[in-house]
């Protein structure tokens, strides 16, 4: 086992894992506010990437304005989704709401397919294309960007939840909706905010990935799956667990492809996920919640 290869596997695992982690973060934020798994989360990631390509390419906006606009639009889509499809069915069966989110994801995918086409697109990298070389492994600048921005998003969320009144209100909602309502927090607004934030986080993920992994109207499905897996692995409801879960799955896949078999790399990651789940159902970083009888 040579160091260079191992390091290379680690780097590529962390890069891909950040994708999963960012998607998982979005899942967690909405789950905490609503107890619903939003299957349209992957579509937010897709929208971020596709819209950035669209604004940059068709309108010649320059990369950064295009990115900002893409993130803003996706956030708006998140808010609309909450207003139009989630709020009217408040209090409905969780499974029904999940099906609605599946419907929304199919809908978004369909719209993007018709208006932006079925092709795959690439976004230009932010800065620099020349790969850096160290210890027998290489890393492209965009990978560093991805890791960095993932960390920043995590840090930003942490500050938001711990230090702002909105963040605290959202946390309160996640613990006990009725009580939050009683102390004057508008649960509706918090739910909407959670959709906005997770759409934003998702689209940021989509934007920073598009230069490396390319993007097309249907990338959301796979990202959604892996993101959901990361959430569960990290412990559902715990944002930092979710991000860590994403990194772990990414690294597992990459080492699986490197040392076991590239054909079975996904299976390898999922087998480990199942084993962990069977032995620690609450996930790696989740606390076993004590059920009240």
């Amino acid at each position: 086992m040579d160091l260079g290869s191992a390091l290379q596997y680690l780097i590529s695992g962390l890069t891909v894992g950040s994708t999963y982690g960012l998607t998982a973060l979005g899942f967690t934020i909405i789950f905490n506010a609503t107890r619903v798994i939003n299957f349209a989360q992957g579509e937010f990631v897709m929208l971020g990437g596709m819209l950035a390509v669209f604004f940059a390419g068709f309108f010649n906006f320059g990369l950064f304005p295009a990115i900002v606009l893409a993130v803003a639009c996706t956030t708006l889509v998140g808010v609309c989704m909450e207003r139009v499809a989630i709020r009217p069915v408040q209090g409905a069966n969780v499974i029904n709401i999940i099906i609605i989110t599946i419907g929304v994801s199919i809908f978004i995918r369909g719209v993007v397919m018709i208006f932006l086409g079925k092709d795959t697109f690439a976004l230009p990298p932010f800065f620099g294309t020349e790969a850096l070389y160290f210890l027998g492994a290489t890393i492209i600048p965009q990978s560093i960007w991805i890791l960095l921005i993932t960390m920043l998003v995590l840090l930003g969320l942490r500050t938001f939840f711990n230090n702002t009144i909105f963040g605290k209100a959202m946390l309160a909602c996640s613990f006990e909706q009725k009580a939050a309502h009683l102390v004057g927090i508008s649960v509706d607004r918090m739910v909407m905010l959670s959709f906005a934030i997770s759409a934003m986080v998702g689209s940021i993920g989509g934007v920073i990935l598009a230069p490396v992994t390319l993007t097309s109207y249907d990338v959301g499905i796979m990202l959604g799956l892996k993101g959901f897996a990361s959430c569960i692995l990290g412990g559902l409801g715990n944002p930092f667990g979710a991000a860590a879960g994403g990194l772990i799955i990414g690294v597992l896949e990459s080492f699986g492809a490197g040392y076991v078999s590239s054909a079975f790399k996904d299976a390898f990651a999922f087998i480990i996920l199942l084993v962990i789940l069977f032995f620690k159902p609450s996930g790696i970083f989740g606390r076993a919640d004590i059920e009240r009888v």
Partner: protein
Amino acid sequence: MKKSLLAMAVLLAILISGQAYAGDTIRIGAIASVTGPASFLGEPERNTLVMLQDQINEAGGILGKNLEIIIYDDETEVNKAVLAADRLIRRDRVQAAIGGTTSGNTLAIMSNFTRAEIPLVSMAAAERIVNPVDPWIFKTPQSDRHAVTRILNHAKDQGYERIAIITVSDGFGQAGREVLRELIPEMGLTMVSDEIYGPRDTDMTSQLTRIRNQNPDAIICWGTNPGPAVIARNRQQLRLDIPLYMSHGVASRRFIELAGTAAEGLLLPLGRLSVAEHIPDDHPQKELLLNYISDYEARFNTPVSSFGGYAWDAMMLIKEAIEMGQSAEPKDIRDNLEKIQGFVGTGGIFNMSPEDHNGLDETSFVMAMIEDQDWKIVSE
């Protein structure tokens, strides 16, 4: 009340009578994957067929009859392809059919057409479709065997011996992998690494790192967009200077756009459609290709891809067969399809026979290299 009853009765009568054979039209069915994962193949195919229907009818149809092409989208799903096949055979009662887009869907619907004794011309590459030969089944794309032969001949000429392959885990990649595994040893080369990646994977550095550790002379990648573009980018990122061959599955401008600078120097077998402007003027395909390209791009406002050409060839072969036999009976179409010789299509020059229902060989490909973001023919 009575009126509405009457209306319903009439409606029912229309429904029951169905669309019977209309004597003055020739009905050709088509099943394409216009949406879903294979839509990048299916969409140009569908467009081409729509365009051909208009062109042929404007030119007076076939045998003076109007041509109607009934196209169904199977969404790249096997079940839907089978249902669409059923619908073409039983409801639309087509005289011949084109499809499916992917090898898997073609394999799934073949038996329906054989049973119904209606000729089917597939737009999918897999050799299994025409080998062993089924009397009712034909196909237009070059076989993977031809592409692999072209690549391996080129590699041998360069003196490469140790070959690594990386293939996608879908029908296309699997078919390529089978031929590669068969032909590499047969041609006296050694396969040192056999890697797989998933159709939606976004990072293949692990596989490439493994390949690098085996020290091959050349890498052959078999897949369709976007995977190969990611592999080309990962190769650049890893600073791997081992020559990389791509399959004909990425023969579109889109691939060069996606791979960007990473595409420079890549080698691949191409149908002449992709390099039409570079082929000699006296080549029999030249004029036809240029016409097809300009017609297509004028009408759909998107760049042409070689996949649309598969549909062009399929439709025009059927037309040729009908005109040869002066009959649009399914049985006659089949018999004449088998007899077509020297037919110039977009994919090459077709020479059909009862033993060969594809009619192409490896000369239907040229070897090309990507240079300055464009194709360059390296061996004709």
